């Protein structure tokens, strides 16, 4: 099975595993209710690197513009490759940060302005985050503040650790797919 860059930190955090689209993903970290509660009232962190990602030369419906002729297409597998696009699923890990305190955590990791005015829902920005070049996409889950953080896979474990460290004061917790499904993600 395919393993994300965060397989080992998840294992240490006590992940219970499940299979999703050929990937070994964390279903939960033992207590789905607790993970949901943290996501709703504080902040929770999930790995959704299994999402398919393409770099497309032309914009597509729902794509994110990264630069001229560089558009990010991202979605649940199976997602068909747009014409002329390069599959970058393996290149980027995707970390999802959910919860009202997620902006406070981001403020400790990046100089980018993540205020509601500067980075509203559906904004896509690029900045250094925890010392790694990152693509930050704000995509709220209903009313719940949520950010997708894309970093190249080699930085993923380091960035994951840094986010957990920065979120310690807000009692950040890893959250598995079961809780994420519960949030309607």
């Amino acid at each position, binding site marked *: 099975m395919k393993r994300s860059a965060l397989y080992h930190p998840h294992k240490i955090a006590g992940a219970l595993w499940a299979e999703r689209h050929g990937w070994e993903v964390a279903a939960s970290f033992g207590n789905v209710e607790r993970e949901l509660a943290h996501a709703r009232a504080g902040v929770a962190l999930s790995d959704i690197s299994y999402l398919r990602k393409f770099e497309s030369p032309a914009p597509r419906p729902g794509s994110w513009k990264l630069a001229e002729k560089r558009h990010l297409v991202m979605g649940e597998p199976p997602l068909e490759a747009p014409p002329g696009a390069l599959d970058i699923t393996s290149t980027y890990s995707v970390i999802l940060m959910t919860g009202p305190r997620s902006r406070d955590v981001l403020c400790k990791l990046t100089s980018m302005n993540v205020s509601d005015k500067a980075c509203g829902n559906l904004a896509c920005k690029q900045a250094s985050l*925890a010392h790694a070049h990152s693509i930050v996409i704000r995509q709220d889950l209903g009313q719940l503040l949520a950010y997708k953080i894309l970093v190249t896979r080699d930085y993923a474990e380091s960035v994951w650790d840094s986010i957990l460290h920065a979120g310690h004061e807000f009692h950040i917790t890893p959250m598995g797919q079961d809780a994420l499904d519960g949030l309607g993600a």
Partner: protein
Amino acid sequence: MSFKFDGQDVPVQAGDTVASALYRSGQRIFSRSFKYHRPRGLLCCSGKCPNCMVNVDGSPNIRACVTPARNGMVVRHQNAWPSLDSDALSITQHFDFLMPAGWYYKVFTNPSTWHAVEPHIRKIAGLGEIFENPQGIPDYEHAWMHTETAVIGGGPAGIAAALEAAAKGGEVVLVDDQPELGGHLRYQKRNASALDDQIAALRSQANVRVLQRASCFGLYEGNLLGLLLANPHEGAAERLIHLRAQEIVVATGAYETPLLFDNNDLVGVMLSTAAQRLINVHAIVPGSRAVIIAHGSQGEDVNADLRRAGVSVVATVAPEDVVAAKGFGSVSGLKSKKGTFACDLVVMCGPRVPDAGLLSQAGGKLAWSDARGAFAPVNLPANIFAVGDVLGEFSEPLPRNFPDSKRAFVCICTDATSRDLKQGIADGFEQIETLKRYTTTTMGPCQGRMCQLNAISVCSRDTGRTMNQTGTTTSRPPNPGVTLGALAGAKHHPIRRTPMHHAHDELGAVWLDMSEWKRPRYYNPNGKTSESEGVAAEYRAVRERAGLIDVGTLGKLRVRGKDAAKLLDKVYTNRFSDLRPGRVRYAVICDDAGTILDDGTVSRIAEDSFFITTTTGNLDFVHQWFDWWLAGTGWDVRVTNVTGGLASVNLAGPKARDVLRKLTDVDLDTKAFPYMACREARVGETSAVLLRIGFVGETGWEIHYPAEYGEQLWKALLEAGAEFGILPFGVEAQRLLRLEKRHVIVGVDTDALTNPYEADMAWIAKLDKEDFIGKAALSRAVASGALREKLVGFILEGKEIPEDGAPVVEDGIPVGRVTSSRYSPHRRAGIGLAFVPPEKATEGAPISVRVNGLLRTATVTLEAFYDSEGARLRQ
């Protein structure tokens, strides 16, 4: 609640600072002065002067008067021996005649003398020492904030400005360095209910964030403010906040500074605002008999506060009538022209100074006004505003009758007196900036707050210039000081890991840091293998059987588009437009001067699709280099960095084909899959790109495959190779193996000036190509025929190995240098690469190399040390 001070328990009340708890418990001496070790007590009580600096939990120079007292903290005095009350080093003040202003510039002109005495001077005249904190090194963190309006200062003016800005609807951040808002109204209790209403109004605004106990230490370009927040949450010592604001309102107010008279530093001589803080904030009676020094009605408020607290105010003396404070260590009286008054407290109503440092840093100017008795800010830049007392709109003329005395302290941080300043001016340092450097006045921990005005006054009077002509010293950030821990931030260094990182850990990898990457240096599977044993075993496996190395740190780029070959022809020195799909070519990038910048491989996957590898450290550079040369061309080329998405291994050795055959259907026979060919194929459960290349000099394949299968295929290859005796090998074995093949590493065996001819790679520069970066310079180099030096191989006599960088010597003069050297098991001798003069670059020429301080003879070779025909690579 209590804390320890020099081993004694000190009880703590709610709201106490370390200083207030100590003062309440009877402590009056808080520190010893920097040079003369004179006892010093509370002076400002607001975190501005140096007098209450102590060591808290191992950290030195913490101001007790603004540090909240916490249960169990360990507080120690500093710069006194054996104790604060009786400091043996206070004897130095009796030898002050030996140490006038600038004395060390005059006495220690001989460097050897200075080096002999410097450690002693540092010991005697130091600030605090660092002790180990029993709780370990605290956590520091950084944070970034953005706002429309930042208001610095939470006094009445700052609160009013924040409310006004908030009413306009913008986002406002109010920064205040005190535990409570209110500024001087906190300790000068006037109109308190109106203040409470304003604070309540402020807190009810959703668009206002209030940062308390946050000091603003600098204003930088682009309206960036540096803030330091103490104890942001449990477990964190400090948070450094980078606050960017569209407009900044400076409402930092004004602070009181000392008056200049004999013995003005005695314990018990304090500023009126300090006495008011003790009385009105901490409910402490500061003394029993007080004398107030004040102009006219200036002292009425503090007089009322003192009387209310039960202090007997025996006299109010005008500053011009003061002669000297009396007392030995602590004040026992004040001598004035109108008589001597016995007292244990002297309260100075000193001149107020606008706290305008941030305005100066923003580019504003300060102009003196005699009527106001202050330097006030003028010419503020756009989007910087000042409100309240920082504007210096007082009417308090400055006292000008200070004595020239060796006990009238201008700079209490470094014990510089008015006489020292006079001496400095007499020595020719009559500009305030040079006088500052000569006497160290304003250069201590208070950063000029307590002394700048007095120093300028003395300088102005003694040079006969006006205050404006004298000017001010420069305010530079950080002010106040910032701990190094706060600047460093969180203990989180970025680490880049390959997909097999944890598999290497399981195999006992000993790690090597290569920039942010972690790479196995060698493997120590049983915990007992030395580096030399491990490397020898890994070397033998590759030469005799099979070895597997993780090369995932190589930079990897996909270059696609119909003009891709055109771009590669432009940036690389050799040709790629004629490279057939399915073939690989070694590639070198040069700059305009013909200097080698990077090397790697270029594989043509399809007509308009290339797969490129770069060296580990140069990926970002190469990517930018491509983008740079693409800019404005209009060519159809897309460059994508796929480094993180690919796991990469090199499987090499005489048995490599047997190992790989077990996992793939692709025909690996050398006729079907020759040296320098590439194929896309399935290996194990994944798709992969296979490159038949040989950095280590054996039959081998570089396999690039999706990172999510990283560990799986790595383990599958090791399992498939177990029957052939495969071993994983690390960077050290790889370096030895490639050196035997005389393969260079760019940046190790080349330097910032090396061109391909000097690196003995003339074949790589295709000067018949229409154009490429560096062609002009390389053409000139060929035409002139002049080489600076040339990279050659050498074989040493004997087994000693020179260090990298060891000199190549001719007639006692260094003429070249070794770039890499190892013991070669194949040649049973030391081998290496070295730059030598071009005339020495001939087969068999003898050279001398310095090894461990002795000259050793070596023989030059232009051949590879191992398999110079390359037969094994092509098998």
